């Protein structure tokens, strides 16, 4: 067991290194570098930069060095918690990350819980009554759920809610509560706004998850222990929930592996549409204005946390399911 955990943790380290390399490549990809943008910004404000100052700047940021050296310098800073400066927001990137990334992660996790809340009952129902009207209806809905991109669902739901009630869902809190201290009212207001992104994110992934649960539950229901339990006269509801569902839930934990990346990515887009103060709008702004340090750092943090989440779910699965071999 501990061997398995240690091995998974050891794989995690090269993954992190790879993520940092990819992120740094992203920073380097667009034509021009940080100094170019910096000089451009200065010139727009009326300042001038001569060649000497330019060279000094390039030396300061290590831009005259080859790629691996630059990466080393950047990584050294990152490990000390210094992600560089965002000239778009004129703040240290680390501050922006600390403010936005936890919110994205919290929404993503809440969305996954919400997904299960929707998907588990649907999965059980369609497996219990295979080929019934409900099963077909949910199958159709899951096809629809897979076909509608998150941003579209967010747009349409926002429009429908606005059209029917006049309530414009936007942000995490309504404007009047944004700077207010925490209170019951504020929490209620948050729920009023936050249900929409959660529903949007959950519906998209629930489509897939309920299919997985249905398939694994169908396999379990055919097994002999179910027949035995039934023959012994166990009430049907108790039987289903206590044995086959418990076994069939295990694959759900492993679905975190593919759900987490999808939900985090979806959150980025949905939060742009719904104007949530999470990473989405910041990332888009940063990309559009080529604020590459911010872009790279955001991609890195989101990826690293997602990979960490996947790792956790793997370990959790190994702890919960005694059938999994650790070799």
């Amino acid at each position: 067991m501990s061997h398995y955990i240690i091995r998974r943790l050891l794989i995690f380290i090269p993954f992190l290194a790879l993520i940092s390399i990819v992120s740094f490549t992203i920073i380097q990809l667009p034509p021009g570098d940080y100094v170019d943008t910096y000089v451009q910004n200065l010139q727009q404000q009326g300042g001038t930069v001569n060649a000497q100052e330019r060279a000094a700047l390039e030396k300061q940021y290590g831009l005259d060095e080859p790629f691996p050296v630059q990466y080393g310098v950047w990584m050294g800073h990152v490990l000390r918690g210094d992600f560089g400066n965002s000239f778009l927001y004129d703040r240290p990137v680390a501050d922006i990350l600390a403010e936005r990334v936890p919110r994205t992660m919290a929404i993503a996790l809440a969305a996954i819980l919400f997904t299960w809340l929707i998907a588990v009952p649907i999965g059980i129902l369609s497996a219990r009554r295979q080929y019934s009207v409900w099963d077909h209806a949910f199958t159709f809905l899951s096809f629809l759920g897979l076909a509608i991109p998150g941003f579209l669902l967010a747009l349409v739901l926002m429009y429908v809610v606005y059209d029917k009630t006049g309530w414009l869902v936007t942000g995490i809190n309504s404007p009047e509560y944004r700077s207010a201290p925490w209170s019951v009212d504020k929490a209620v207001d948050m729920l009023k706004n936050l249900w929409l992104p959660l529903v949007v994110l959950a519906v998209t992934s629930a489509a897939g998850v309920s299919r997985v649960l249905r398939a694994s539950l169908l396999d379990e229901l055919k097994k002999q222990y179910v027949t035995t339990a039934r023959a012994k006269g166990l009430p049907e509801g108790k039987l289903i929930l206590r044995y086959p569902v418990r076994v069939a839930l295990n694959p759900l934990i492993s679905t975190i592996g593919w759900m987490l990346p999808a939900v985090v990515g979806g959150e980025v887009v949905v939060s742009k549409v719904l104007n949530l103060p999470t990473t989405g709008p910041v990332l888009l702004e940063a990309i559009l204005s080529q604020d590459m340090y911010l872009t790279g750092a955001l991609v890195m943090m989101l990826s690293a946390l997602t990979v960490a989440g996947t790792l956790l779910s793997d370990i959790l699965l190994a702890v919960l399911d005694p059938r999994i071999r650790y070799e």
Partner: protein
Amino acid sequence: MSTGTKPEQRRHYTNTRGEHLLRRYQRAHRRRRRAEVRLSEASQRRLMWTRFKRHRLAVVSLLLLVGLYGVALLAEFVAPYGKLDRFPDATYAGPTRIHLFHEGKPHAPFIYGERVALNPDTFEYEAVADTSQRFPVKLWVKTDPYKLAGVIPMDRKLFGTGDDSQPLLLLGADHLGRDLFSRILHASRVSLLVGFAGVLVSFVLGVILGGLSGYFGGRVDAVIQRTIDFIISIPLIPLWMALSAAIPPGWSGIQTYFAITLILSLVGWTGLARVVRGKVISLREEDYVTAARISSAGHLSIIGRHLLPALTSYLVVHITIAVPTMILGETTLSFLGLGVTAPDVSWGSLLQQAQDVTVVANYPWLLTPAAFLVVAVILFNFVGDGLRDAADPYSR
């Protein structure tokens, strides 16, 4: 006679139709036997096609998809206007109604002219139908010369009024008075073909890397598998967004388009590679592969000529399932303003106008590109589902 038996069986005992029915059953049986004999020598591909044809939903979806692609390829001909044609009087004009009755009498399809009038209740200027002016909607209507698909010179469109003074706006117009229907058709070319272009790239990558990984095993396998693990465990959309930032703004539409395709397929190959690897591993110990190896066939020719043909059906299924992912990816990127940009259009970039709820609330027809998108993706999923059942040798 118990009530549970089928009416045909009941009749069999009660009237003279029995003999007739028997003959019919025998004929049906013989037909089925013949089909079985024919199929017993059929190739895997033919079997798959026969099974696929039984899946009615999938067949209908396939036909509709072919139609959709046909319309996309002939966009210049089917769309009544060009993607950049503007009607300055028609900014945010709603969908034009096509009438079949004039003053209570049936009439060939036509649209009324429009004039602007002051609404006495809201004091807003609104477009009002002018029933004195009628513009017939004709098929095969003459227009300015253009080139179909950039090659074939044409001067006819599928339908239109043939008179630009009153535009025929099937799905309304956008903020510049451009016909949304025409723009959607032009956009579908970009959006639908990105799926195929992207799948083509990821197909090549997936088959080669998956094949190598499965065939050689060992270290090659480990490296490729860890790479796949890595790619599928990071959130893609932020990565796509960041990568599309690297597309130089000066690039032409086609160059940007190819860059986006590459970015999307950077990830698409992983799923295919896994499928190919699994299959190759299970096939490489087969006798015919050993035979090929003994006859001193090279590694590449064993993979290419002996292993891959055995997986064609799986590849076809996988491609069908992969296309909608690409389409959705492109739409998302373009929607965020990171993909296809003006003057080129895609479904995603058309939906960009609908980003604001207040705009959608006033001009709901701006959401119609989404309907095309959802329908296309659902059709692909249905076809993929049918193909998957057909390719599974254990299904029935």
